[in-house]
């Protein structure tokens, strides 16, 4: 690991000021991706701005129509929160499936979104539920947030404060795990908001999470597993690595979507 300056601002204003001034600085949330990347010297920020002291980012609340989760809320807390379990059980389940126990107790929602790892779980829910991401400057629509491999709509120094997830009528998340890392080889989040409004978010398959329009249309007609079973996803542009070829990933999208619809109907 290369040397860096460590900062621990006690309020949002100082944090953002540091994040903006330090051109090569990075915000430190749970550190489950960033610190690993630094240890491998894939990433060598000049400054780490630890957000642990920002209490505002640790709030979690739910009203009838949505669940709002602070950027520094850890995966384990989302998974265990009765408010989330009641309003969007699929989201609580997703959080409980991320990585392993250690990762879930350190990793945060904001960190996962800002990093936009192609195999992260949360992006599937953000797209699947059409969440709104709030930063220190503005509100960003889920559909405009993920731009590419580790790339988001966030500007330099911009800090995610929270994400608001609308509660669907029914939803489910299914992922095919890499047995070693438990990252999603392919994960599919399906949400039915009623009235033909269905969203399908896919993670793990492409450079970043994306929506599957063809499945959304089919499910809007009829929300049943057989609606997606026949849909063949094109492998073009999907990830190719040691674990799965684009063709296999394309196949898994259909299988996971089918399973997610089945689970949502239960």
């Amino acid at each position, binding site marked *: 690991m290369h040397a860096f300056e460590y900062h621990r601002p006690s309020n949002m204003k100082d944090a953002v000021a540091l994040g903006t001034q330090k051109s090569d600085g990075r915000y430190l949330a749970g550190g489950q991706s960033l610190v690993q990347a630094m240890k491998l010297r894939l990433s060598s920020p000049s400054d780490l701005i630890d957000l642990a002291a920002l209490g505002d980012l640790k709030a979690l609340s739910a009203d009838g129509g949505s669940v709002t989760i602070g950027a520094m809320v850890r995966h384990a807390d989302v998974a265990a929160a009765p408010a989330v379990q009641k309003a969007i059980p699929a989201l609580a389940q997703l959080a409980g499936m991320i990585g392993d126990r250690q990762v879930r107790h350190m990793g945060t929602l904001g960190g996962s979104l800002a990093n936009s790892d192609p195999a992260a779980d949360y992006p599937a829910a953000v797209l699947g539920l059409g969440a709104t991401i709030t930063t220190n400057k503005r509100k960003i629509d889920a559909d405009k947030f993920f731009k590419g491999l580790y790339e988001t709509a966030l500007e330099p120094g911009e800090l995610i404060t929270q994400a608001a997830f609308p509660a669907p009528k029914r939803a489910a998340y299914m992922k*095919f795990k890499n047995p070693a890392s438990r990252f999603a080889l392919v994960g599919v989040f399906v949400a039915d908001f009623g009235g033909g409004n269905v969203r399908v978010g896919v993670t793990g398959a492409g450079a970043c999470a994306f929506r599957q329009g063809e499945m959304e249309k089919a499910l809007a007609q009829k929300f049943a597993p057989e609606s997606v079973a026949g849909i063949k996803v094109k492998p073009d542009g999907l990830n190719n690595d040691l*674990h*799965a*070829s684009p*063709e*296999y990933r394309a*196949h898994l999208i259909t299988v996971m979507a089918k399973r997610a619809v089945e689970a949502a109907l239960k």
Partner: protein
Amino acid sequence: MNAPLVGARIQRKEDYRFLTGAGQYTDAIGAPAAVINAITDALGVKDVPMPATAQTVWRSLQTKAA
């Protein structure tokens, strides 16, 4: 306490079947072959490359169907 017995030498008895890998003493040698045999039997193919990951099994099925 039978302290004097701790670490005491015992006469070693070699089992001929163990030495030659016959019978039921071969555990780890037989298991992978049995698993792969089961997979090839289930898929109706002649061979599946190891390790038989989900993707490998899926690919076998695709090739067979084609």
